[in-house]
């Protein structure tokens, strides 16, 4: 592990809003209401790629909102799982954003989206092989060095597995953590979606997952593709968090203790109050798990 990563992990306490209260995705339809009503939200999470312009409404409102709230930055375009070298121009733009807004965490995905200069606008799966792991680790090291901070990597939602994969997803992620010192963003909805799609046990996945490296949790909604055979769950981020994902969330917290959490929404936007209610529900579960932990310690 690089020295600065170790210092950061051990030396700094997490800022209070992010650590204590659940956050929600920041979307343009909520900008005005957030500034007028200042809802009690732990933090707002932005997609880096939507905030790279030097002007316009996104830039303007981000500056206003960050005067009142902590932020986290979630990258969706670095293509860390790509076979080719990272797009350095894009990395530099992301680094400038991170430098400017000083987020509580910066996270990215175990996925690829760019090949030969073409950006495909999706989080595409990676075969779990030694070769892919080595390249992914290089890319994660490169981003951590460039940003001068530990980054979090999110477990993917996948719709197929590769015959060429030589290890499990959780072993692949454990090895990534070991080699790069990165943290993890545990997306509980992704666990539910992938395990359903590959007919595995989500609880077993969590048992295998390197929980000690989890620094943030994502909760989101999925849609069910009834037409597919077998049926597939699609990580659509356009529905309320599902019942079984709440249950899995509580189970994850029981394994790791309290953890900063985000209600993630990217489409079919409801009233802001609906997302705030989901955030409150996450806070309740976090509180409940803390109580149980406390009682167990007596």
């Amino acid at each position: 592990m690089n020295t600065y990563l170790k210092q950061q992990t051990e030396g700094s306490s997490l800022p209070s809003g992010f650590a204590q209260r659940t956050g929600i995705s920041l979307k343009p339809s909520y900008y005005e209401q957030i500034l007028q009503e200042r809802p009690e939200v732990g933090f707002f999470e932005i997609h880096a790629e939507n905030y790279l312009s030097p002007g316009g409404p996104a830039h303007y409102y981000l500056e206003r909102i960050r005067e009142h709230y902590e932020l986290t930055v979630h990258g969706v375009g670095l293509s860390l799982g790509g076979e080719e070298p990272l797009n350095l121009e894009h990395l530099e733009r992301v680094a400038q954003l991170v430098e400017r807004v000083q987020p509580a965490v910066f996270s990215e995905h175990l996925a690829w989206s760019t090949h030969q200069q073409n950006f495909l606008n999706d989080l595409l799966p990676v075969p779990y092989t030694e070769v892919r792991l080595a390249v992914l680790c290089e890319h994660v090291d490169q981003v951590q060095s460039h940003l001068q901070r530990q980054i979090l990597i999110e477990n993917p939602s996948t719709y197929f597995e590769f015959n060429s994969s030589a290890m499990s997803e959780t072993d692949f992620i454990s090895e990534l953590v070991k080699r790069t010192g990165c943290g993890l963003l545990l997306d509980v909805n992704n666990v539910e979606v992938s395990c359903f799609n590959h007919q595995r046990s989500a609880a077993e996945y969590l048992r295998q997952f390197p929980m000690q490296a989890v620094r943030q949790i994502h909760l989101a909604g999925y849609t069910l593709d009834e037409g597919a055979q077998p049926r597939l769950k699609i990580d659509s981020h356009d529905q309320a968090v599902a019942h079984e994902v709440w249950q899995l969330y509580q189970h994850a917290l029981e394994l790791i203790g309290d953890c900063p959490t985000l209600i993630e929404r990217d489409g079919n936007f409801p009233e802001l109050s609906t997302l705030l209610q989901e955030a409150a529900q996450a806070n309740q579960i976090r509180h409940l798990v803390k109580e149980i932990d406390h009682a167990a310690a007596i």
Partner: protein
Amino acid sequence: MQQPFKQALLSTHPDTEQALLNDIRGADVTERQQRLNVYRNNVIVSLMEALGDIFPVCKQVVGEAFFNAMARQYIERHPPTSPVLSGYGDQFSEFVRDFFPAQSLPYLPYLCDLEYRLLQLTHTAEVPTLSLSCAQQRLSQVQNPEALALHLSPQCKLLRVPFAVGSLYLAHQTDTPNLSQLNIAQTEYLLLAKASLYGRMYLISAAEFDFLKALQDEPNLSQALPDHEAFDLGQTLAKLMTWQVLHAIEES
């Protein structure tokens, strides 16, 4: 692996997916294809939606089905080259010009070009311009109108288009566009500028177009005055001040 994957996602030809299907776990070919189709659908639908957000008026004018058919082909031929999708579609107007099913709508590429330019303006950094009151005060202090220099904001763009796409665009800024008065086969003059965070478009007259074009080359007011009977300097200045497109008013 990623090259055949990319091809399978973008291409409409079924044979491009064979190499990838062999590496997908699944009971049979149908299941493997279904699993791959989730990604294909994610990529194509999300990029269609992105293009629809970038060219909303074009989409309304031609309808969703026609727009998506056009977008589908564009995505295959010109996939994005950057993860920042607000810049996607820079070749869309040219593509639409050559898109055979759209040949009966010769104004469509001009509309797309207009929408693209406005979105790019929205994303540029704000440049300070004179507020209405500040510009009025500045003008009222002028001693010698002959020496007056008007500096337009460097973000101002002037367009002369052979169709009434400016009016078409403006008509679609309401929920129920009224196109009954619109004669699309009419040349229009447009001023594109940025105000209150967004790229904005204003319809101007041919005389105003000549005036502003001249001001861009040489800000001296008296030299820029066009030789048009219909030109009303007072009215034009009032518009420029209201639109807040003046960078500076100077007396040389």
